[in-house]
């Protein structure tokens, strides 16, 4: 279970997230929607502490995963990131072979047993619905795959280290419709084993894949409820306006 309490976040002087609280249950898909620059990606990146990489940022509030404060001093960030996987907006495979891309997380985690690595890679690629397409080109460069395959490779790469949570930052925004629907199918399957949080600018996508949806605007969480409810009967007027395309 992921829990955020009274989160405020600043880039320098810019107040990017304003007093946000939210709970996400295990084995659910939560979608964040909102106009660009609303803070949804920033919020997502709090949970694997990717925002740490940016200079001059400041965070107040509490961020807990399974009850443990992930910003506590004793937390090992690398270990946290192994538990909280992430898939980025653009497919970003390493300039290595398909196999080595998936094995990367295992290797940096200290796994050396070749057989185990092979098993885990196969399992991860299967889990990402990619195994059948790439089993004959594991040694080929990852760049030879199509954009959609590359993105599923990045998902497989994240799955290989068995995270509990998978964060997806607009995972289909750079892909064509066919690849997008494959990724969405995959999200439905992954839900059984992982807790997913997905940022998307595509409202239909949020409606299709998620159980709960949070609507962000100008750094605030305007509304957070069951997806069905939000799309059929939003509480706030801003949400209504956004969903009906009056701005954004």
């Amino acid at each position, binding site marked *: 279970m992921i829990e955020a309490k009274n989160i405020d976040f600043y880039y320098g002087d810019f107040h990017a997230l304003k007093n946000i609280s939210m709970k996400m249950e295990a084995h659910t898909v939560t979608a964040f929607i909102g106009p660009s620059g609303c803070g949804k990606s920033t919020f997502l990146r709090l949970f*694997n502490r*990717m925002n740490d*990489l940016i*200079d001059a940022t400041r965070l107040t509030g509490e961020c807990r995963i399974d009850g443990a404060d992930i910003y506590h001093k004793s937390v090992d960030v*690398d*270990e*946290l*990131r*192994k538990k909280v*996987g*992430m898939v*980025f907006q*653009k497919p*970003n*495979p*390493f*300039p*290595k072979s398909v196999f080595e891309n998936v094995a*990367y*997380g295992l*290797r*940096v*985690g200290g796994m050396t047993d070749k057989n185990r690595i092979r098993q885990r890679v196969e399992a991860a690629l299967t889990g990402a619905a990619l195994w059948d397409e790439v089993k004959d080109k594991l040694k080929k460069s990852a*760049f030879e795959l199509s954009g959609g395959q590359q993105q599923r490779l*990045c998902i497989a*790469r*994240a799955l290989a*280290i068995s995270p509990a949570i998978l964060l997806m930052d607009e995972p289909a925004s750079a892909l064509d419709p066919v690849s997008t629907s494959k990724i969405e199918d995959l999200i439905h399957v992954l839900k059984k084993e992982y807790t997913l949080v997905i940022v998307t600018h595509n409202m239909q996508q949020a409606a299709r894949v998620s159980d709960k949806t949070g609507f962000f605007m100008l750094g605030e969480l305007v509304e957070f409820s069951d997806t069905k409810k939000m799309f059929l009967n939003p509480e706030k007027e801003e949400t209504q306006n956004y969903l009906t395309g009056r701005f954004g």
Partner: protein
Amino acid sequence: MKPDLLRCKRKGFRLFAEALFTLSGTVTTVVILLIILFLFKEGAGLFRSNEVEKGYSLCVHASSPVERLSPAQIKQIFDYETEWIPFRLEDLFDRYSEEELGKDYALLPGKLGEEITKEPKLVAFVPTQYVPTGLPTVRVLPGSRIGWLRFFGGKEWMPTATPAPLFGVLPLLLGTLWVSLFAILIALPLGLGATVYLSELAGEKMRRLLKPAIELLAGIPSVVYGFFGLVVLVPFLQRTGGLPVGETALAGSLILAIMALPTIITVAEDAMRNTPKALREASLALGATRWQTIYRVVFPASVSGISAAIVLGIGRAVGETMAVLMVTGNAAVMPSSLLEPVRTIPATIAAELGEAPAGGAHYQALFMLGCILFLITLLISTAAEIISGKSFYNKKGI
């Protein structure tokens, strides 16, 4: 009519200006071609020169078995290292007075003939105009041209030796490579370490201060580095190493390493920072530590840029003249140790061209050295270009 004339004038000016631009566009190409032309033209003359000094001949007794002498053999003879007796014009002046040699040395060839006839083991080195003619006892040795093999394979560089200078390029070539090689070996860990520090570890403020500072240091004149080496490094090496002289290959390598550092750091740092942010994030998001990310992702991704930096550093070291000239001691011997003096090709050119008479064999030999240096650096800069063009990301357009 008038506007037409004006238009004509304008058009003429435009064509003239554009022709000028086009011509200027080729200027670098022309300069390079001219450099090649002049270097090779002057240098190639070397292989048309005689091995024996211009205007001089070697004479022996007619019965002498000597057929042809190589420069090295001539040197041995005139160093009294053989059974043959060397004989120079000065020896003749020692034996005969001015009167005996006659007005304008008219009698000199005759006296020389007498000496050669008297002593069958004599090898005389005299101006060609004084060679005795018509004497059956005197034979003039045929002169041979300086050969490619002797130039490129020769192990001795004694360009001012008489009667026959030795132009063996090997000690200089190896000296150049020797000094540069160790310079790079020293500069590499320092430079790459500093690069990683600058691009990955130093904070943004520190980086903004240090990067321009290091770039600035690339602009310090080489003669200043040489001066520093001479007054600080050389005495230091001599004292700590207990060496007879501090001017050694090591001093050269150290100074070159320091001089190559800014080049290596600037180029390699650019390469490392150009690693796409997405790759770093992907690695960190998979739980890799910063160090794992650096050596598993950033290094491999920027390897072509880093190699180009190293190659450029080598190029800078190979061509460097003044600093090396000032601190390496300039002994033209085959390099065998870091703690002995060596001499590099650029230093040789700088040190000797001033004393080599234009058009002489020595002058031509120095231009030939220039050709060799030119080819080496051309090879290096082409290599750098190919390597840096090979970047993975350039090709894939990422």
